């Protein structure tokens, strides 16, 4: 596999960085890939802009950050506006459906991420894991089982069940997700 780049963006407190770490761990420990995972965030614990990036490759990874993402997840309008233009032509974008899309040039999946997290998972904070479910069903760089294993290792023990549910909801959502092209 050649260099594959994922950018997860949103606001502080939405768990984008944890999601990035989980992808990275799944790819490293379960798939044996090389990975680099980086992030950028403001000093705020909550609310400010937050971005996690994962680069996957069979080769040694030199530049550790995303250059042109294969996947962009944007959970806030701000994040979307800032990043949607960077995505590779053949890449995909995943956004919450509260977000207004502009100038769509790449495959964009707009889904009721928060709505489902609140309604079906009953935990708004599970949106990040739900997103992992979506990603899982859209790409084939990493196996479902690997992602699930990595999630279980990273989330607090008592929340494993609810997070597995979030993952499943995400997968289901993606399978029926509407695509703007």
């Amino acid at each position, binding site marked *: 596999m050649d260099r594959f780049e994922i950018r997860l963006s949103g606001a502080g407190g939405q768990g984008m960085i944890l999601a990035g770490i989980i992808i990275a761990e799944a790819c490293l420990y379960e798939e044996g890939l090389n990975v680099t995972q980086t992030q950028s965030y403001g000093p*705020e614990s909550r*609310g400010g802009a937050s971005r996690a990036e994962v680069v996957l490759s069979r080769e040694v990874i030199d530049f550790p950050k995303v250059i042109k993402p294969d996947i962009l997840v944007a959970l806030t309008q701000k994040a979307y506006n800032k990043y949607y233009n960077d995505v590779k032509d053949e890449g995909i974008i995943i956004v919450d459906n509260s977000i207004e899309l502009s100038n769509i040039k790449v495959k964009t999946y707009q889904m009721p991420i928060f709505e489902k997290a609140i309604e079906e998972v009953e935990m708004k904070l599970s949106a990040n894991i739900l997103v992992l479910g979506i990603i899982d069903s859209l790409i084939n760089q990493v196996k479902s089982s690997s992602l699930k294993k990595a999630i279980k290792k990273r989330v607090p023990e008592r929340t494993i069940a609810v997070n597995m549910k979030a993952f499943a909801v995400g997968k289901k959502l993606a399978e029926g997700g509407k695509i703007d092209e």
Partner: protein
Amino acid sequence: MGYKIDEYLRQDKLPHIWCPGCGHGTIMGNLIRGIDKAKIDPDKTVVVSGIGCSGRASGYMNFDTLHTTHGRAIAFATGIKLANPELNVIVITGDGDGTAIGGNHLIHGARRNIDLTVVLMNNHIYGMTSGQFSPMTPTGDNATTAPYGNIDQNFDLADLTKASGASFIARGTAYNTRQLIEIFAEGLLHTGFSFIEAISQCPVNYGRRNGLSSAVDMLKCQRDSSVNIRKWDSLSKEEKKGKFPTGVLYKEDKREYTEMYQEIIDSVQEEAK
């Protein structure tokens, strides 16, 4: 009861960066109400803060405001006040900012009894850097740098500032908003070093790690462990356990630093004539 806070708040900077349920917002709001109540001239008021979540307060308050380095706010404030004693100088600090790295400036500010109003937002943790213990994290509690429980002992800040020479010492909680306003107003009007410890809650970096996951629970805890100083002395030792007194704990009339310095100037200049 209707406080005019609009003039004192930089509304365009809101929402602030503090987490949901953070006590710092409540304390800052009531500091502003205390300012309104004390009727000090906002054009002659300077707010100086250190670094930390608490330190961000200065950015939201509509005065001359200075966000400095970690721990040094009182030293900056000392220069501001001595250079122009007309100014009302308020310092906002945190328990880490004010008692760890800034401990020396706290005791020396108190020793000089310089006319500052120091508001220490004590959330018992380093909030901004995500949950390391501070000198005010209760012994035994967990923090990211105390994974096996904190063995450090705490200061009693009222004792410490009293021993250092502060002439006004008070404590309030984010819970007891009305008392806070009173204390702030009284501290602002006191001439001399006024130290006010305002107990805050950090649900994200302190509560979560110590069995109190919501701001509401933490506020209830403040309610249950605080006792008004008027009642405090009548409690038995047993009853005092795990509790702390709030209100104006100490107040003294004492020579103030900038006034004493002005006397030097006056007498030196008199002599020079």
